[in-house]
């Protein structure tokens, strides 16, 4: 198959693979911080930044747009934290508000830019649903480089991440600054989101963070294996989705990546080795069988006396 693809397409495929791995790994961290939907809010909140980056550059300039996206996503994260901590509005409502208000602002700016001319030709619309085919060589390098950086950060500090996620009190006792860890966590999460928005789009980027992590949960109880599997699932979905979307003209990449990830999820749900439905069914069956085994009254009484 890869022989039939052009050189450029191979690079795009490679970059969505790395992106999927990075998103899968970060998704596990977000899962255990119970912030799956936070990633959804942040990816929507990145839209105004993308457009403002475009307006400043005057043309499609990926580093500037990624910078803008990161700035507005971080602003969104700060606002969510601020609303939650200093009013009685709960976190879920704060996330829903930031998500929709920032996205509304993004749409306002997008309409504005499109009307100025040049916006629709530059493929700004493709940031909403993702268009991996619209990436040029330089975009591919930027994206893969940053995604590799994310993977590296999570590997190097794996022990610290584990402590921070599962026992923050103990981590504090060991002298690990939870404030620093939180800032790094938020920065890396935003980084994954903003590098993914060109290929996957702001609306569905969260899925690449959420779904592989949930799927890997069905296979293992070990955090290390969960991270590895989730990265693997993410990478597979990124690549498969990109491949499928090249079969049709103008097909958006994001939705296909999500459907690939969901397929893996359904397989994991059914056949997962740790909590999969099939395993649960077999366990229940075995339990029932052992209970149904006929026992003579004598043996029951003996057992009762013995116990």
């Amino acid at each position, binding site marked *: 198959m890869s022989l039939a693809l052009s050189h450029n397409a191979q690079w795009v495929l490679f970059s969505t693979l790395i992106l999927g791995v990075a998103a899968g790994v970060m998704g596990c961290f977000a*899962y255990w911080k*119970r*912030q*799956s*939907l936070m*990633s*959804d809010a942040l990816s*929507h909140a990145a839209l105004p930044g993308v457009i403002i980056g475009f307006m400043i550059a005057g043309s499609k300039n990926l580093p500037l747009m990624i910078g803008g996206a990161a700035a507005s996503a971080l602003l969104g994260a700060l606002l969510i934290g601020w*609303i939650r901590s*200093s*009013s*009685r*509005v*709960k976190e*879920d*409502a*704060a*996330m*829903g*508000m930031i*998500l*929709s*208000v920032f*996205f*509304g*602002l*993004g*749409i*306002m*700016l*997008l*309409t*504005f830019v499109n*009307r100025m001319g040049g916006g629709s030709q530059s493929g700004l*619309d493709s940031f*909403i*649903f993702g268009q991996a085919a619209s990436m040029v060589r330089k975009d591919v390098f930027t994206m893969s480089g940053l995604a590799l950086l994310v993977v590296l950060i999570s590997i190097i500090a794996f022990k610290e991440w584990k402590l921070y996620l599962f026992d923050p009190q103990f981590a504090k006792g060991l002298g690990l600054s939870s404030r620093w860890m939180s800032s790094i966590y938020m920065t890396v999460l935003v980084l994954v989101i903003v590098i993914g928005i060109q290929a996957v789009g702001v*609306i*569905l980027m*969260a*899925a690449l963070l*959420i*779904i592989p*992590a*949930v799927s890997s*949960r069905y296979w293992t109880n070990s955090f290390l294996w969960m991270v590895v599997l989730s990265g693997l699932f993410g990478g597979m979905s990124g690549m498969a989705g990109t491949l499928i979307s090249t079969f*049709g003209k*103008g*097909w*958006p990449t*994001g*939705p*296909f990546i*999500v*459907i690939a990830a*969901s397929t893996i*999820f359904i397989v994991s*749900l059914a056949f997962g080795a740790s*909590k999969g*439905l099939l395993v649960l069914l077999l366990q229940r069956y075995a339990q029932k069988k052992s209970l149904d085994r006929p026992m003579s009254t004598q043996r029951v009484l003996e057992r009762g006396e013995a116990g």
Partner: protein
Amino acid sequence: MSYAGWILLTASLVGLSCGIIGVLLILRRMAMMADAISHTVLLGIVVAYLVTRELSGVHMLIGAIAAGLLTSVLVQWFHARGVQQEASIGVVFTTLFAIGVVLIATKVGNAHLDVKHTLMGEITFIPWERIELPFIGSIPEAVFILSIVLIVVLVAVLAFYKEWKITSFDPALAASLGLPVVLMHYVFMSLVSVTTVAAFDAVGAIMVVAMLITPAAAAYLWTDRLLAMFALSGGFGVLSAVSGYYVAAWLDTSISGSMAFATGIVFMVSFIASPRHGLASRWFRHRAAGGAAPG
């Protein structure tokens, strides 16, 4: 009525129904569920279109209610199987939404259903798509549907006002009193879906989320009384719709985007200036109590 008048009326009807439903969403801590449903109704609409090959209001409503109920059933089902509630919402709605977008991109084409249209809505076309009604004459179809939805929402909320109150504030007490908590949950989900789909066509998915959550959250900062919260939330919805429209007309930009942004401004003002729970009043109260200003 003038062209702008119809648009304002449509948006105000959206603001009213979403504002009322939003209060219950906030109190039941289901804000993100609304976000999920507003995305998945797309799948319901697309499937209804593929089955009937027409974009009529009734089919779309049925498809959307089915999609909304499917979403909440699936979320509950996964949650019962050990997936965190949050993650479960995330998995279900992104998947169903992606299927909807793929169906549009591959099967439907961009002729009748446009993905962008469903996200941002096309409120500028509303005044032209008219239907004839006895006694009233010719009015836009969206206004007719939204009015019916508003009446349904109002009747459902007012007729079972006490029940909603108890199930929202104290589900355990409600269950011990013998109220059908689960049934009310699904009735509520249906109400959310109906409101969402009726508003969806007019203003798009994202603005529906903004209108459902933000005015209600703003109202939550002004009052502790449920009835007042309903009234304020509906009022804030209308206020955002009207001011959003004029800002959009002034800047010549997306109307629904501007209305969504206006809800954010309303919230920010409430967040800072609300006499009961606002930042400013808390700061003054703190000073009056003799403490240092909170950081």
